[in-house]
């Protein structure tokens, strides 16, 4: 009895201590670890980040890898939990010895991972977290963001909304980093562009709020000129449904970031006339590169990509180009190469700003509308706001980091 237990324990220890990846005789592969949310509603975007990334990696490997080295990807499901994600990231860094870490849609975990990667000296590409603290106040040498952040979204929204004849605004959103940061950036930029703008009131609900009706009736009672909705993920869908059910879109102009992404899951039943910003749609921008990317993605996964796919694409491009430029996988050289690097993408040429490691990404402002040929509402009348206009200035970032 005791012997068999000892045997099992020994077996367990041997199993745990075995080298995670056997070094092959040929050049060792470049390993990339992804910690992201593959359970629950957030996986709507995370799955597309991963799938687009894998699509690109397979293309890279089919053409001989990066500098002759194959790319190997390890994914872990953080279940939207910080403690789980942190343990997984440490496993990837310390046990699998990944060359680059990527992730996650959970801003709070992304901030924790940024701190971890600074200590462990591993490059970290934030793929879906929108917190502007990642490359702003909390930014460090090892962190890069390949998606737009709340500072940029807020500025884009202010640029789009300020010229319109609205003076009294109501802000409503998730009581979460994303909601507060987006609202804060939007209002700061709005006051700069339009000093006369008035905040009629705010409402903050918990993430996953099941019923928005009480909020909507309260907002209507205040009669603002425009409602700004700073909510993310599946709450966008719930709120869009509440808009439709209460007919709010006929009474009040509404703005919501990623509304066009979320409205897809409502089919043709989504609310029309919602102002929205976005970074990527399958139908916009209408470039050859985008059409080709959509076709490849659909061929492999039998579904349309959402904006998460763009970040997966960008991450793969940036890693490949930076690796080739630096001539290997030396971390510090890789980071130097990545700073200021430009890559081609479905939304055109995109640059990684050298100072703060924030990608310069254009954004589109449009309005949800039924269009013939589509089984869902699309963002129409899109106006492209160039990425350069959206970036927080380097002086602002320096100030935020000094304050920290």
């Amino acid at each position, binding site marked *: 009895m005791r012997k068999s237990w000892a045997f099992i324990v020994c077996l367990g220890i041997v199993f745990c201590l075995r080298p995670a990846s056997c070094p092959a005789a040929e050049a060792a592969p470049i390993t990339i670890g992804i910690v992201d949310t593959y359970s629950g509603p957030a996986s709507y975007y995370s799955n597309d980040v991963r799938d687009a990334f894998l699509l690109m990696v397979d293309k890279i490997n089919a053409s001989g890898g990066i500098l002759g080295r194959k790319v190997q990807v390890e994914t872990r499901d953080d279940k939207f939990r910080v403690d789980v994600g942190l343990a997984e990231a440490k496993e990837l860094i310390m046990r699998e010895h990944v060359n680059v870490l990527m992730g996650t849609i959970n801003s709070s975990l992304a901030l924790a991972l940024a701190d971890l990667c600074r200590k462990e000296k591993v490059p970290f590409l934030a793929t879906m977290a929108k917190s502007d603290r990642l490359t702003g106040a909390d930014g460090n040498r090892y962190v890069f963001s390949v998606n737009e952040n709340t500072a940029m979204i807020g500025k884009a929204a202010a640029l789009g909304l300020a010229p319109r004849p609205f003076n009294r605004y109501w802000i409503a959103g998730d009581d979460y980093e994303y909601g507060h940061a987006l609202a804060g950036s939007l209002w700061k930029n709005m006051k700069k562009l339009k000093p006369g703008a008035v905040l009629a009131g*705010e409402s903050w609900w918990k993430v996953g709020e099941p019923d928005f009706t009480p909020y909507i009736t309260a907002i209507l009672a205040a009669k603002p000129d425009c409602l700004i909705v700073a909510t993310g993920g599946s709450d966008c869908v719930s709120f869009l*449904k509440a808009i439709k059910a209460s007919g709010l879109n006929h009474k009040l102009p509404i703005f919501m970031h990623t509304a066009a992404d979320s409205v897809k899951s409502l089919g043709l039943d989504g609310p029309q006339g919602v102002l929205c910003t976005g970074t990527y749609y399958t139908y916009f921008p209408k470039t050859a590169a985008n059409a080709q990317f959509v076709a490849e993605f659909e061929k492999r996964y039998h579904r349309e990509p959402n904006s998460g796919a763009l970040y997966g694409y960008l991450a793969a491009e940036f890693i490949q180009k930076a690796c080739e430029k630096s001539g290997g996988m030396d971390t510090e050289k890789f980071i130097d190469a990545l700073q200021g690097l430009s890559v081609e993408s479905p939304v055109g040429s995109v640059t990684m700003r050298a100072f703060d490691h924030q990608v310069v990404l254009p954004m589109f402002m449009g309005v949800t509308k039924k269009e013939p040929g589509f089984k869902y509402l699309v963002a129409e009348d899109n106006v492209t706001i160039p990425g350069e206009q959206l970036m927080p200035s380097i002086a602002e970032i320096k100030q935020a980091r000094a304050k920290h």
Partner: protein
Amino acid sequence: MHPAIHLTLVSLIQQVLVGLGKTTTLFIVSSGLTLVLGVLRIPNISHGALYMVGAFLAYSITRMLGGGAAGFFASLLLAPLAVAFLSLLAERFLLSRLYERDHLMLLLFTFALALIFDDLVKIVWGSGYRSLPLPAMFQGSFSFLGLALPRYSLFLLCVGPLVAIGLWFLINRTKIGKISRAAAVHREMVGAVGINVGWVFAAVFMIGCFLAGLGGALVAPTQSISQGMDASIIIEAFLIVIMGGLGNVWGALLGSLIFGLTDSLGVLILPQFSIVFPYAAVIVVLLLRPSGLLKSAW
């Protein structure tokens, strides 16, 4: 940023009515929970997971039946029935073996059930979210004396009392209700007079879980249906049950009213901190009456 207060009589009435609509779902879910607690003495953590399963089933059933109003009404009946059947399997094959065990074991066992249901949902429906449109007849709102009342809230306002009356009838006027009330007080005695307690328990468990499924089916068209939608409702339902008195269905009604109304009025008075109001109400009630507002079943 400073919040403004918009407190007019009209908006107050409107907010109360909307709050009552929210109360309905809370009542339906928590009455099922309290029924199971009162009769079977099971603190059923998986109640929330069953609510989520109900919502997902309502989605699939409505889709299968073409997605219109007919599909919606059919799903209101079929989804809870399917949930009840699922719970019957869990009760007969698993839970019924554990009735003699400690409550702690029962709590952890139902937590295990919740984990398994949660993962099964991921396996069957995938990890993303689903969305179901409101039937056309419930879209938009009624205008009445300057009030804008969402139609679906009014519909919920009608469903709530129907369920309450149904439960009252079941508990007070049917044989199974009488036996279960007796079993709640004195389990061995009921067994001793020759009644098969096992099946009474199974039936009560099914009814309780039916209500969880019904709650899920009712919210399915108003929000995105996703994994994890059970995490907050189960805590809210437990708070309501505690506030009302364990095992007391009318306590659940009272608790839901307090919870739903403080929530929706909180939005009007101090929107930034609205979530704190219902919790504060629970604390006040429990400080004054530690064992709940109404008489506990045990």
